[in-house]
């Protein structure tokens, strides 16, 4: 929105020239500043004997990384090490988004529940976590909660093969046996069948009016067929249990305390915000509509699905995608806990060879790209799912 140009004439009005001139001035000043900064930087780098450019990415890293999704050893290059960091950032962010959403939805629904106790507990949860710095929560989980777990030799066994200890959480590692690929294909086929049933059930209901449980039916089909496929292919998934040997557990899946604290902290913190989004979404729907839908004799489940949710999501989803973007940025707090995410590893590299400009530029590029992808996703959701509106 801009002012109506009352005296704007096309071509060479004084106003237009003035505006173009002042903009040119501004641009020149900004470019001038950039140039000065650039020359200063070159001078300073030369003074300190720091190199410029991205060739260092090929040099040997020589730094150990405790937690890596891909194969890594210190003889790998800096570039590879940074890649490990990026993958760790994405991994922890993805898991945190999934769990935070699930928890957040529960918290949001609990907040508006008729059960006074549930609503109060949820409110206390939200008000506590939103008013504490995330870093404090992370420190607390890492130094107090997880540090209170016993030594591996006395680890708590939750269920068979799941151990909680001071050195981390250990879970059975699923291993693919012979026939796994067949099972996987069969499972995918079962998924397709389940989804297809769901779609068919919807059209059946519309065509004949008779109720047909699309979601549960489809889910049932998927579960049963996958189960049958699993048995038919001779149970091709085994698990490698962690075993205590030496001074720690060997085998199985290990979740280091750094990763666990970061994940738990991010989930608890973000879920509080998502819960508030869910709550404001639900409360944004006018009570009169729910009344009108109830007065028509429609069941509560259908009213929730068809009247409440579509309108609530219109408020909840944009706010929540914002929180997802914040979560990815918050994952950078890993550097304070010791989890080797992109910022951690980048910081270590800067410490080693001083090439701060390049590393910081790479950070910005990655985070801005992730932000962009999340924005595009939100725009897509807005257009496809939420657009039905006037």
């Amino acid at each position: 929105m801009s002012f109506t140009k009352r005296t704007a004439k096309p071509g060479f009005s004084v106003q237009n020239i003035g505006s173009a001139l002042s903009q040119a001035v501004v641009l020149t000043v900004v470019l001038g500043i950039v140039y000065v900064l650039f020359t200063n930087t070159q001078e300073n780098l030369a003074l300190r004997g720091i190199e410029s450019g991205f060739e260092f990415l090929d040099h040997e890293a020589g730094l150990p990384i405790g937690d890596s999704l891909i194969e890594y050893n210190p003889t790998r290059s800096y570039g590879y090490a940074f890649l490990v960091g990026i993958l760790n950032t994405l991994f922890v962010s993805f898991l945190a988004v999934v769990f935070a959403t699930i928890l957040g939805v529960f918290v949001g629904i609990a907040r508006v529940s008729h059960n006074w106790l549930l609503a109060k507990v949820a409110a206390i949860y939200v008000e506590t976590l939103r008013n504490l710095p995330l870093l404090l929560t992370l420190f607390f989980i890492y130094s107090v909660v997880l540090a209170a777990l016993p030594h591996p030799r006395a680890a708590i066994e939750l269920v068979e093969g799941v151990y909680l200890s001071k050195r981390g959480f250990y879970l059975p590692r699923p291993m693919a046996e012979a026939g796994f690929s067949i099972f996987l294909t069969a499972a995918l086929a079962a998924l397709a069948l389940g989804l297809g049933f769901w779609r068919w059930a919807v059209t059946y209901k519309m065509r004949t009016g008779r109720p047909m449980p699309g979601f549960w039916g489809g889910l049932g089909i998927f579960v049963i067929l996958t189960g049958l496929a699993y048995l038919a292919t001779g149970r091709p998934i085994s698990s490698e249990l962690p075993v205590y040997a030496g001074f720690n557990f060997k085998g199985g899946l290990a979740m280091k305390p750094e990763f666990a604290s970061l994940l738990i902290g991010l989930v608890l913190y973000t879920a509080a915000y998502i819960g508030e989004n869910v709550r404001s979404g639900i409360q944004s729907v006018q009570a009169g509509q729910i009344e009108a839908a109830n007065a028509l004799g429609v069941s509560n489940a259908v009213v929730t699905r068809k009247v409440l949710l579509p309108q609530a999501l219109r408020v909840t989803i944009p706010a929540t995608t914002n929180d997802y973007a914040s979560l990815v940025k918050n994952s950078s707090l890993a550097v304070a806990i010791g989890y080797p995410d992109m910022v951690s590893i980048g910081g270590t590299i800067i410490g080693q060879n001083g090439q701060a400009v390049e590393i910081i530029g790479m950070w910005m590029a990655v985070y801005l790209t992730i932000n962009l992808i999340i924005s595009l996703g939100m725009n897509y959701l807005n257009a496809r799912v939420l657009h039905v509106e006037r």
Partner: protein
Amino acid sequence: MGASWNGAARPRKNVNTELAETIMTDTIESQIGSEDEIVIEMKGVNKWYSDFHVLKDIDLSVTKGERIVICGPSGSGKSTLIRCINHLEEHQEGIIKVNGTLLNENSKNITQVRREVGMVFQQFNLFPHMTILDNLCFAPIWARNMPRAEAEKTALRYLERVGISEQKDKYPGQLSGGQQQRVAIARSLCMNPSIMLFDEPTSALDPEMIKEVLDVMIELANTGMTMLCVTHEMSFARSVADRVIFMDGGEIVEQNTPDAFFDNPRVDRTQQFLSQILTH
């Protein structure tokens, strides 16, 4: 109200008998007789909002095809009364029976009653995220398990009847208030209710749109639909109602045929109210 009234000014007997005592015109006499079906029965109904006693010992019987207008000052409990009939409000004492079904905490009974009773709200309450057509098809599909094609036929029929059929693919936000309210009436009619409740249906409308909604309501009344209407539109009461009920402070103060009610109000409170609303 003759012999049934005493100083307490509260009807003690069954309304039917009282009305029979005050019959003024032959037409009303012929419509009401003891073999007429009672579709709504309220006996000794009391409701409290926390400590506030909002409905006091309400006794009301509505026969099939009867058109009732309920009026009264704001806060008198009129809306609460009709909202108790389809259980949007819960009564704490007394009995409410609709078409023979007892209204209590049993959700099956409640849903049953709600499918037979249609309600039109002051704020229309159309679903803004659905088209007009979808708004109307919603309840038949999900509450009566009607196939979509059949629901659409019914919907179009009622849209025609209220005069909005060309707007069927628009969204509620694109319609005027009067159009939205007519759609709301059509939406309730799609469920083929035997009773229609109106909660101040024209109070949120601009004056020039009131007539179009009242016309629909009058046409509906002329088809013999049982109607309970909370409204300030006294012209409607005069032309269509079989009975006018005046409420104040949570109780029924006076009820009578429209002519008797407007021309010859018996209770001082009624006289006071009528003098206030009819002279402005």
